[in-house]
């Protein structure tokens, strides 16, 4: 079954959201999501690196020998990360300072290597680029949402603008380490709730498909009660 281009693009945003569903790249997400602006910044960096590396890797997939593919991927990714790092240093020093060590750590972000191995390695350049953009957007979205929640509750601001800080004191624990884990856990639970609910519905035996229906006295549309 071939996926349409649109499907590839949207796949990463919701259905296979890299952070919440695949649980990849947790470290930087947790660390930088204290401010919404950082979430967007980090997301953008990941988006760029992911897309570029996906393109290059899928373009080079025929040339790279299978046995040394992982080191090659890492080198390609590290190159783009260095580029992004230099660009940030030059044009957005504040963001660079805020993200700090987590920019070089994009190299070891499992999302990028994971997509290189799982997708770019097997698909065309265009598809890979779309996948990179989709996954990058998914990452950005998650990081930003998480950062917004933590910033809003933890410091009463949003993108640096004061929202509720004057109304009541912010619950600062949310911008600290425990808050990060907690908000992340809750977001994953939310996604679980949204996706697993459907699966469960499918599993319920409907009476009419039940082979015991012919001798069951309680045949009804919704399946029998336990």
């Amino acid at each position, binding site marked *: 079954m071939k996926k349409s281009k649109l499907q590839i693009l949207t796949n990463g945003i919701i259905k296979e959201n890299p952070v919440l569903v695949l649980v990849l790249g947790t470290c930087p997400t947790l660390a930088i999501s204290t401010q919404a602006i950082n979430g967007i910044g980090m997301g953008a960096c990941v988006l760029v690196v992911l897309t570029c590396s996906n393109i290059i890797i899928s373009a080079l997939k025929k040339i790279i020998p299978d046995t040394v593919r992982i080191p090659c991927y890492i080198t390609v990714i590290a190159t783009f990360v260095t580029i992004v790092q230099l660009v940030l240093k030059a044009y957005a020093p504040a963001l660079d300072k805020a993200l700090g060590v987590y920019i070089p750590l994009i190299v070891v972000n499992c999302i990028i290597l994971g997509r290189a191995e799982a997708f770019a390695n097997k698909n065309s350049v265009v598809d890979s680029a779309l996948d990179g953009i989709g996954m990058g957007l998914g990452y950005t979205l998650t990081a930003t949402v998480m950062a917004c929640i933590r910033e809003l509750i933890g410091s009463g601001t949003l993108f640096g603008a004061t929202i509720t800080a004057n109304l009541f004191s912010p619950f600062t624990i949310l911008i600290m380490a425990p808050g990060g884990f907690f908000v992340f856990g809750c977001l994953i639970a939310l996604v679980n709730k949204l996706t697993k609910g459907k699966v469960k519905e499918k599993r319920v*035996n409907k009476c009419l498909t039940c082979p015991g229906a012919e001798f069951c*006295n309680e045949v009804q549309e919704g399946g029998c009660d336990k």
Partner: protein
Amino acid sequence: MSGYVIPVVMTVVIAFIASALLTLAAKFMSVPVDETAVAIRNQLPGANCGACGFAGCDDYAAALAADPDGVKTNLCVPGADGVAAAIAAILGQEALDVIEQVANVRCSGDCNATKTEMDYQGLKTCAAVKNFFGGPGACKYGCIGFGDCERACPYGAIQVCNGLARVNREVCVGCGMCASVCPQKIIDIIADVKRVHVGCNSADKGKDTTKACSAGCIGCKLCEKECKFDAIHVINNHAVIDPDKCKNCGLCAKKCPKKVIHVFPKPNVKPFVKVDEAAS
């Protein structure tokens, strides 16, 4: 110019040293890996259901790799034909069809047909209640109905409705998890193509069976007389079908005065399901 040369040279040199070291290490400390087993394992669904008779997917893969001639490639029931073909391809053998199997409960005694003779209070599992006078039901051979099988099923294919375990044949893959936990041993794993089954396991005499359950085989032997293929016999006070002889004609079912012989609809083709949940 040197601004470009130095980083490039540096990286190349470092990479070269690292790769040289690695190559050496790999050479001197190599451990043979069974690539075949890994490849086969990747094909298996990962439900670790044990339907193949091995202690899980890893074990089956290892056994296949170690002894490709002795171990059959079509043992993975949940994986069905697709997996069998893939394994055969890896091993360079001809693909064998998987005999599709489903679970079948040898009991028809739901709450309407039979009743309990004690007020059991305690752990609600079949294995637990079996300790007390063989279960709360009037019939000591039939389904207890506390759903040990339901909890054991990784596919949600068996459910207790109205005090009786029932299999959804469309979902069931015949892994046998339910059969292994059933304390009454009334769940069989049978070929899906066999469609006629006796829904009773009672070893009591007809009179006692009737007393305990209105949906029990009374051993009247009408089915035995009706069968043209000598496929059904009353053994141990209940009818038993010999699957090798049964032709799915269903004549016995029509004749059965207690209606405990069931004819199931034609088997459907089952899609290959990879069970991520069971694996994690």
